[in-house]
């Protein structure tokens, strides 16, 4: 347990442990964006 530093996100390493690339998540630039794609805010649709 660290006192001074807190890990907020393990990043792509953790996400690479899941079954990946199923392609079922929403397309990044569809709908609410259309101009400035952000991938970090796209949720994984796969049920745990």
């Amino acid at each position, binding site marked *: 347990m*660290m*006192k*001074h*530093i*807190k*890990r*907020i*996100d*393990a*990043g*792509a*390493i953790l*996400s*690479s442990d*899941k079954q*990946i*690339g*199923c*392609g*079922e*998540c*929403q*397309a*990044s*630039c*569809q*709908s*609410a*964006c*259309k*101009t*400035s*794609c*952000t*991938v*970090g*805010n*796209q*949720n*994984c*649709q796969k049920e745990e």
Partner: protein
Amino acid sequence: MNAISYLSGGTFHRYSLFGINILVHGKTGAIWQLDDLSWKLLDGQSAEPEGDALAELAAIASEARQAEERFAKQGALYAENLEEGPTHLKSLCLNVAHDCNLRCKYCFAGKGAFGGERGLMSSEVGKAAIDLLMQLSGPRQNCEADFFGGEPLLNWNVVKELVSYGKEQAAEYGKQLQFTLTTNGLLLDDEKLAFINEENMGLILSIDGRPEVHDRMRPDLGGSGSHSRVLAKIKEAVAKKADDNWWVRGTYTSWNLDFTQDVKFLVEAGFSNISLEPVVTDEEYQLREEDLPKIEREYERLASYYLQRQREGKPFSFFHFNFDLAKGPCLAKRLLGCGAGHAYLAVSPRGDLYPCHQFVGQEAYRIGTVFQGIEKPELGDRFRQAHIFNKEKCRSCWAQLYCSGGCHANALAKNGDLMLPDELGCRIQQKRLECAIVIHVLTSAHAQIPA
């Protein structure tokens, strides 16, 4: 290399915002929050290194080094798969109307017509597009189609026919097809809203915020402002929408760099799902690099307002501040980016296919037709290869695994090079991510949101 030098170089990025100290590792996407003592150590400000903090910095440096090695191997594998493996279409942007009842200055459609003839998509073209999506989506269970334009409600009968046909075809192929519709709202009425609800369609409603900002950019055919009529229609649509699958979406330009005021207007008008996007244009109201300091400060102001509403128990959702780390995208998605040109295609009214809605009408980027399928697979391959590992600028960026390489259309428009992202877009993206990460930290369970 000692821990502090390692954590201060390469793709590590550190910043403080609203009293929160953040360290991001670009190569793996890992994020840490540091207290003031460890922050000062990392910043070389502390003359008396404190044992625990130093040991903790050494621990995360060691963790990051191992993760970096592991990620380099896995990432290269996925990149190879992305370039060489099978590709599957997932989403279509159906430009069902190259015509509009407004004349918005910054429209991709060049005030409605995409630089060509005004025209409406026939149901024959639309059905062929859906057939193509079913055939080319392979094992994908969930597919998407957005009705776009121009103003798609000008071709409402075809929209209805295509939703019905799309659902039938999806059932036959054992897939789900989710429809969305992007509209200025003016032609929405009870019949259309009932249909949208029955079919669980998503709605994207275009409004820019304050009346004077909206009216300056979104006049009607006679040159009069459209704000009051649009606002009334959009309020009605949101009130009658049966689910939460809707966004109000605006555009900001160099004429309203105080765009937090526009978000405030929308929030105070009662909207809770808001997206506000930087304009894509080379007109006089374009965003320029010299605007960046103002734009960056404005996103911080917007983040501050976002947190204020959270504190007051009146939260709203801002598309680019959404950041669910627990259910974030997988590595493949982070490499893939938007999928333009292979997973995502736009369809013109006459059935031509383009890598995305921003390319519609550009002959050099016509990738095929709904009737002939993909005629220029090499064009799609160029887009597939334009991922973060192949772009020099992305490889050295701290935000690479959250942004995933930026907008291809902007890279080509600004630099004429798919592999060279637009610097302005990169900086805006980085600032939004900085804000989103700090918002995530401050709104997570047990966090104190500072006044």
